[in-house]
Structure formats: C-alpha cells, structure tokens
C-alpha cells in the first residue's frame, strides 16, 4: 500500500507537538457504523482478564531475574540545600551492599534542562542524593542511613504566591517564574467587551496539588548484556523511556530495549522517564548484575509528579440576553522545583463562544516535587473555575445555567479559527439533562431547609481527542488461522489489548479468541505514541484497521491464485474467500495459509494523517446530584450522569469503566485529595495513603454513561476520540455547582472538604 511522509501536529498533555509520520497515501475510508458491527462497540471482556484475576499478570514490580540486586534511593531531607560533603565509605562496607552512586562518582548527566541526575543543589524534600544497590532491599535501605551527607541549608519557599515575590529565595538562576514571563493569549478587545456588558462577575478560585498515586509504585528492572540494556519499566511511554535512557547513558537508542507488559496505573505520572531508571542502569553497569529499583509510597508522594495547584482570577462579562462579551483569566500555579506546566486557561479560551478573551498565566517554581501531567492537565482545574463562575453569571442574568451555555455554544475553535470535525455538545446537554432530571433542580439555590440539602449542577468539557500518526501495527496471520497483532503502544489498564483485537476480529470476521496482541516492547513493536492525553485508542485502532483491510486484500489475491480465477470475482466473508458465481469455489483462511506453506502472511498498518483544516476535540457534559450534610459538612455525591461526544465507542465495557474511573478521580479532586506541605519545614505531610485521602468504594455515586456520538468519519477509519481525560474534566465543576445549588453559597476552593463547607455555611448565616 502506498505511503507518504507528512508533518502531523497534535496536542499532547500540555502542548502542541509536531512530528513526521508515515501515513497511508490514500487517506482512510470510514468503517460502517456500530449498528452494522458485530465486535466493535460491543461490551467485549478483556483479553488480559485471566492474567489479571489469576495473579499471573506480571507487572514490572513482580519481575525477578537470576542474581538480581535491589536499589534504593537517598533523598534530600531539606526543601532547599546544597551538599557540601558526601561520604559513603561506611555505607559501602555494610553487609550486602554492592554499589553506591552520587554526584561525586557519576558523570554529570543533564536532567530537567538545567540540572543533573545527581545535582548537589537540592531543590525539594525528596530530591535525589544517592542510590545504593545491595543484595536485598532491606540491606540497601539500611545502607542509605549510613551515607554521611553534609548539607548547607538554604532558604526555601513552598508557596507559589511567596515564590513570585521579588525577594523570594531563587530556586533557579533565572528566577522563580518558569520561562521568565507568563504565557499570554488574547483575542478581540477585552475592554470593549467589558464596556458593552450588562453583568460582570469577577471571582478567584484556588485548586490544590493532587498526587497521582497509582497502585503500582514507579519501578524498573534493568539488565545489561554487554553494551545492550534491557529495561522493564512501569511506564506509559516505552519509546520515550528508551530515548531518555539511551541519551543519558550515551548509547544509541537501538541498544536500549524497553519492555512494559502490565502496569498498575499511571494517570500521567508515568509519562516521564524517572531518574531511578537511569540510576539503576548505572548501578547495574558497575556491579555487573541486574538491578531492580522500586520507590516506596512515601517517595511516590514526593518525587514522581503531581497536578500543580492554581490560583485563578476570572472575569466574565455578559449581555442581558445572555451572550458572553468578554472573559479573562489570570492565574498562577506551583510547578514544583523543576519545569512543568501550571497553565489552565484552555477551556475558557475555547469551549464557549466569546469574541473578547485574554489570559495570563504564570508557572512558578517552589521547593517541592516537580509537577507532571495529570489526567487532563490544566483542564480539570480550569474547568472547575470556569464552570463555577459561569453559573454565577447565569444566576445574575436570571437564566438557567444550561440555557446560558446553550446560548454561548461555540461552533468553531476560536483559537485556531477552525471548524470542528464533529461537536455533539448540544446533544450531550439534552441527553444528560433528561437523564438527571434537570427540571427537578431547585430554582432557588439553598432552598432545602433540613439538615440534608440536595442540589443539581453540571459542567461541560472539551479535550483534544484526535490521536495522531505515527502509529503502526503489524498483523501476522498464522498457519492455524490465528492472528497476532504487534504494536509499540502500551496498555496502561485502559483496555488497549482488547480494543485492538476487536478491530481486527471485526474486519477479518474471525473470533476474537483467535487473536493475540503483543504490546509494550520497543524491540519488536512499530512506533506508536505514548499512552496519555487520551491518544491511544484514536491513534492505534486505525492502524489495526488498516493492517486488517490489507490482510483481506492479500487473502483475496492468494485465493485468486490458488483457485485460478480473477480476484474481482471473489469476496471475503467470515474467514473465507468465496467465488461470487460458483459456490463450490471457496477457501478458508487456514486452507489458503496451508497452501502457502511456511509463509506467514504479514501486513503493516499505519494510522492516517489527521484531516487538514479542522480542529478535533471531544466534548461532553456531566450532571451531578449531591447531598450536603449541613451539620457535618460532608458532601455525598448521589448521582453523576456523563453525556459525551467521544466519536465511536469501540468497547462499551472498558469505555464505561474509564468513565467511572475518571468521575471518581474527579470526586477525589473535588472533595478530598490534597497534598499538604508544612510551611515551616518544607516537608510533605501527606506521604502515605492514610493522610493522602483517595476515594474508596464508599464514595461511589450512581453513574450513568451516555455516548451521544457515532464514529467521527473525518478523523480516521475507526473514528474514535479518546476517553481517558474527558471522563474526569467536568466532574469537579459539576459537583461544585451542585453544592452551590444545594446550600446557596459558593465554594471557591478545592477540595471542598467538610471544614470549608461548614465555614461557608457559617458565613451565609
């Protein structure tokens, strides 16, 4: 099949990225609708289900190799300090200790742009000081305590507002504002828009730092064979781990192989290559043994990322008829000690129609663990603020909040000035409002009089949903009629193994049991994008479809040769090629392959280019019903209806599951999760799962998932948009608005914990 190389631009996590990609030259033709499908769109159970429930699924955490050594990391006890001396001699003599590395005995390996793998300038509690390999993890941990380090303590700052001040302790040479200046955006004339408004509302919102805390801790196992390195890593991005590790060690990328079979969650924290992987590789090289390095739960809460906090000042101006005339967003957020992103104004810039918009955002360094993308970076916190203030504007206008959003529905992407490939947000409003019973909503907020007060609220969502090339998939048809799919993507728990198999099963019309999928190995799978940003399904499934369609062609041509008839007289149906006229002339896949003897049939499918001249986004609206206990301040989420436009639903079961997960994580962010730092010492106080509160099954509301979209035929043959992030984006905003509707006072700060609720109620009087 003819191919060409193109430039593809897509949005991933926090930024636009441009890549070169090999794509099918002819574009792609859409597959039939889900109604006509037998496997795609159905609630197919997971291919990897058996492994997961039987305990045989091998995670990086479980990997054991002969002669395996164990590594542990020494981390800075201070928020800001400089190492003046380090002495590891005594530690090295401890029983079982095999090797110790630190800044004095390792080359300077660049990290975070301006820092190093081991940097004697320590910028947060948890910054890496040294790493020990030993016979056992316990021996390595014991040795950490014997490494003598002298620190010169430096003044520190753990709060973004304080870090922005003139005389704040400087964390990096260029000052504490990342990039030295804010990110700004403007369109239209904000002041003119303000002047023509009848209602202007200005409010400030704050959101907390949230920590990913996937269940499987970050970990790697590394093994050298000569100058070739194999890395098993709990990662969402095998190729970027390969490249970072290779670069850090000065190896060609081809000499590093990264494998990830199963992983215990990531949510963005495992998109970035960890220092620990490189430290393990260095130790393994020195001691001539494979090394396993794992973090413990405390390290997980210090050093492997978080969602930056935010202070957002919004101004929203509207005319009497409900049209938005101006919006502004000024914000700052703490990215931690090293570069990350705290911007959160994307939703305000794009989701509603508004001609006059300006934003100004500061990403601020503080002496705390660096941020990383976290399920819908910026969008969750930005949507909470935007949707909260919009409800307040609607109230001032005496408009129903839903009517107000409908009135300001945007039909094009106003930042890029492009039409959307599809946008079914209005349909989502209708379906969601109906399912939750929007007309039950108290017209007067706080109308309930008793101890328990109920309310309804909703919020909308926009996210990048396109997926992108390059994404490749090899399809191997074996002699027994079974199929193997091989791709360099990774299943991070979202069901990638299964959705890929579904697409192949559908097109080749064979039972899904006959399909095996190999993912997560840089040595064998063709390149695919990282698994984050809701990219995976929309990027990878079209490549599978492409490979399967080519395989059908191959089988037709093989059968034509075998049966000695023109290919045009043959059709492919249910795993068989048959002649349209003479029904006796037919060949099954197995028969064809048997005649081809030892030749395995192979095809290579590639993701098509995204269409030119369009913006591709997912949309949705979530409706929440809450009950507030006005005596204790406890908020119970009763029900959430999620109505979304995510293109084609490939697997109803895994899709629902992802929505459940996103909504529950949204509940966690809205009501309980928060990383707390002691301002006196700079130490994180919430380093375990007792203190860092996450939702349990008790926090689960009733959840209804409604998909209002069909395949988006402009995007790809499959026409799926991603689901992971959209699921979480609107939840906190919907809950905030429901709480307001219940108690009649607005909370401006997440998480909306009982103390804040009680305080708000007290102020209301």
């Amino acid at each position, binding site marked *: 099949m003819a191919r060409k190389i193109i430039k593809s631009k897509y949005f991933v996590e926090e930024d636009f990225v441009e890549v070169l990609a090999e794509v099918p030259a002819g574009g792609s033709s859409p597959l039939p609708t889900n109604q006509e499908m037998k496997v795609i769109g159905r609630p197919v159970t997971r291919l990897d289900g058996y492994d997961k429930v039987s305990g045989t699924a091998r995670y990086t*955490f479980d990997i054991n190799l002969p002669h395996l050594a164990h590594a542990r990391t020494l981390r800075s006890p201070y928020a800001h300090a400089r190492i003046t001396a380090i002495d590891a001699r005594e530690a090295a003599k401890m029983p079982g200790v095999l090797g110790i590395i630190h800044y004095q005995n390792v080359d300077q390996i660049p990290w975070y742009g301006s820092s190093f793998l081991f940097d004697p300038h320590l910028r947060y509690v948890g910054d890496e000081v040294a790493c020990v390999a030993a016979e056992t993890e316990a021996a390595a941990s014991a040795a950490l305590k014997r490494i003598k380090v002298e620190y010169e303590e430096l003044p520190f700052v753990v709060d973004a507002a304080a870090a922005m001040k003139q005389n704040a302790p400087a964390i990096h040479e260029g000052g504490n504002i990342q990039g030295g200046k804010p990110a700004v955006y403007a369109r239209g004339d904000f002041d003119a828009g303000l002047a023509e408004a009848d209602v202007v509302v200005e409010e400030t919102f704050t959101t907390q730092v949230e920590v990913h805390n*996937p269940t499987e*801790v970050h970990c790697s196992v590394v093994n050298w064979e000569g100058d070739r390195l194999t890395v098993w890593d709990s990662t969402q991005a095998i190729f970027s781990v390969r490249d970072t590790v290779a670069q850090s060690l000065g190896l060609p990328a081809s000499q590093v192989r990264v494998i990830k079979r199963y*992983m215990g*969650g990531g949510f963005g924290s495992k998109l970035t290559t960890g220092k620990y992987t490189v430290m393990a590789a260095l130790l393994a090289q020195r001691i001539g043994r494979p090394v396993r390095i794992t973090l413990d739960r405390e390290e997980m809460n210090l050093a492997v990322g978080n969602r930056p906090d935010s202070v957002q000042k919004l101004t929203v101006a509207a005319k009497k008829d409900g049209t938005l005339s101006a919006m502004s967003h000024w914000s700052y957020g703490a990215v931690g000690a090293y570069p990350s992103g705290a911007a959160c104004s994307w939703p305000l810039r794009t989701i509603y129609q508004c001609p006059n918009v300006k934003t100004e955002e500061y990403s601020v360094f503080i002496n705390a663990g660096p941020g990383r993308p976290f399920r819908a970076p910026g969008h969750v916190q930005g949507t909470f603020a935007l949707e909260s203030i919009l409800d307040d504007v609607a109230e001032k206008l005496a408009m129903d909040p839903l009517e107000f959003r409908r009135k300001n529905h945007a039909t094009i992407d106003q930042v890029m000035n492009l039409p959307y490939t599809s946008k079914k947000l209005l349909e989502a409003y209708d379906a969601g409002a109906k399912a939750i019973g929007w007309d039950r909503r108290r017209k007067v907020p706080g109308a309930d009089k008793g101890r328990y007060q109920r309310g309804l609220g909703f919020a909308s969502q926009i996210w990048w949903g396109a997926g992108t090339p390059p994404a490749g998939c090899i399809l191997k048809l074996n002699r027994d009629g079974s199929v193997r799919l091989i791709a360099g993507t990774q299943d991070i728990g979202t069901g990638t193994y299964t959705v890929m198999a579904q697409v192949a099963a559908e097109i080749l019309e064979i039972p899904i049991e006959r399909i095996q999928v190999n993912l997560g190995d840089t040595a064998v799978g063709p390149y695919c994008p990282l698994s984050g940003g809701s990219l995976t399904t929309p990027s990878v499934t079209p490549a599978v479809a492409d490979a399967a369609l080519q395989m059908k062609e191959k089988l037709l041509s093989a059968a034509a040769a075998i049966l000695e008839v023109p290919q045009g007289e043959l059709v492919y149906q249910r795993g068989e090629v048959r002649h349209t006229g003479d029904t006796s002339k037919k060949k099954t896949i197995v028969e064809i392959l048997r005649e081809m003897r030892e030749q395995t049939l192979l095809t290579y499918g590639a993701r098509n280019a995204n269409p030119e001249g369009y913006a591709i986004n997912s949309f949705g609206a979530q409706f929440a019903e809450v009950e507030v206990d006005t005596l204790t301040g406890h908020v119970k989420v009763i029900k959430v209806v999620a109505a979304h436009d995510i293109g084609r639903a490939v697997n109803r079961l895994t899709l629902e599951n992802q929505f459940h997960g996103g909504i529950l994580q949204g509940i*966690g962010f809205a009501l309980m999760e928060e990383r707390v730092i002691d301002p006196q010492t700079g130490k994180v106080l919430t380093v375990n799962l007792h203190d860092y509160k996450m939702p349990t099954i008790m926090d689960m509301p009733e959840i209804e998932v409604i998909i209002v979209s069909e395949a988006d035929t402009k995007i790809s043959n499959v026409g799926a948009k991603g689901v992971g992030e959209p699921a979480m984006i609107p939840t906190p905003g919907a809950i905030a608005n429901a709480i307001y509707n219940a108690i009649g006072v607005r909370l401006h700060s997440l998480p909306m914990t009982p103390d804040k609720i009680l305080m708000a109620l007290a102020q209301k009087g």
Partner: protein
Amino acid sequence: MSNEENGNNISRRKFIKGVGVGIAGSCVLPSLEQSAIAQAKEGGDAVHGGKELLSLTVNGKPVRVLVEPRMTLAELLREKLQLTGTKIVCNQGACGGCTVLLDGHAVYSCHMLALDAAEREVTTIEGLMTGEELHPIQQAFVDKDGYQCGFCTPGQVMAAQALLLRHPRPTREQVLEGMSGNICRCAAYPKILESALAAAEKIRKS
C-alpha cells in the same frame, strides 16, 4: 479471651524474641552475613542466629521456611514463595492491595509479620484457582470488567472471597462495606461492586 487475641499474643512474643535475636546478631554482622551468603550460595537457607523457623499452610500446602523476624507476610509470599499475585501498594495497612485470607479472614499481609501466620492457613489469589481454572469470583471480575490496570485486583478478589465466606448472600451495603478497605486508584468501583454481586449469585446457583 478469643482465639484471635490468643494468636496475637503468641506471635507478639515470638516477634519480640525474634527482634532480640536480630539485635544481638547485628553486633557480629559481618561474619554472620558472610556465612549467610555462603549458605545461600550452597543453595540452602540453613539456620542461623537471625532467622526463625516458620511453619504454616499456604494455599493448602504445608510450608516450612526460615524467615527474618522482621519479614512481613506479604514479603514472605512474594519474595520467598514467589507468589507475586499478592501485591504491595502502600506497605502500611492502608489500602488492601496485599489482602490475603488468614484462616478464612481477610488480612493485610503487608501489615503483619510472617511469624504471626505460624501454624495458620494462608490463601492467596493463586490458591483460589483450581489448577488453571478460575474461581467463580475471579470469573465474575472478568465478566463484569471489575478492574482496569489490575494491580489492586488480587486484593479485591480476596476481599470479595472473605466477604462471601461471611455473607454468602450479601446485600449491596454489605458488599460496599466488605470492599471498602480496598483502594482502587483506577476507581473501577462500580464494576467491582457488580463483580462481587455477580460472584455471589454465581456461587449460590452452583
């Protein structure tokens, strides 16, 4: 005094005894450690001052093993017995990721010492299977998609097993309560609930 309290007392004594030995041992660590390494090289785990002999039943089979007193049950299962189906998530008794059955009751195996399981019966996720065949609870988690990444799943399944042993016909509330000690960060909770209810139904019918 109930049996359980009784058991705890015994094991606490053992633990203290073990710790004492450990501390005494640490004064002469280099030579001890060398001999331990030497023994390990010989392929044996021969008796030495720092270790205690532990016998217990794991997944129906008697196990006799030398353990350091500080070793947790989770470490014993994962490291000594290679039963890596049991996961460690918080290593602190806060999440249920390491749940196994001890004499039919759910326990957090990261939060108890291996020695506390002496003479008792431990069942792990591996022990729930019959050969290669899934237990009805495991099958229910597959059918209902009661997981995402699957890392908390062994703990969830074992918690469900303990729950169903206690309440063969659990109400929705009983399931919620029984499963509330098991964190799923992917938050597959609605489908975990469905899985547990479906499993109960399945077991009842069979």
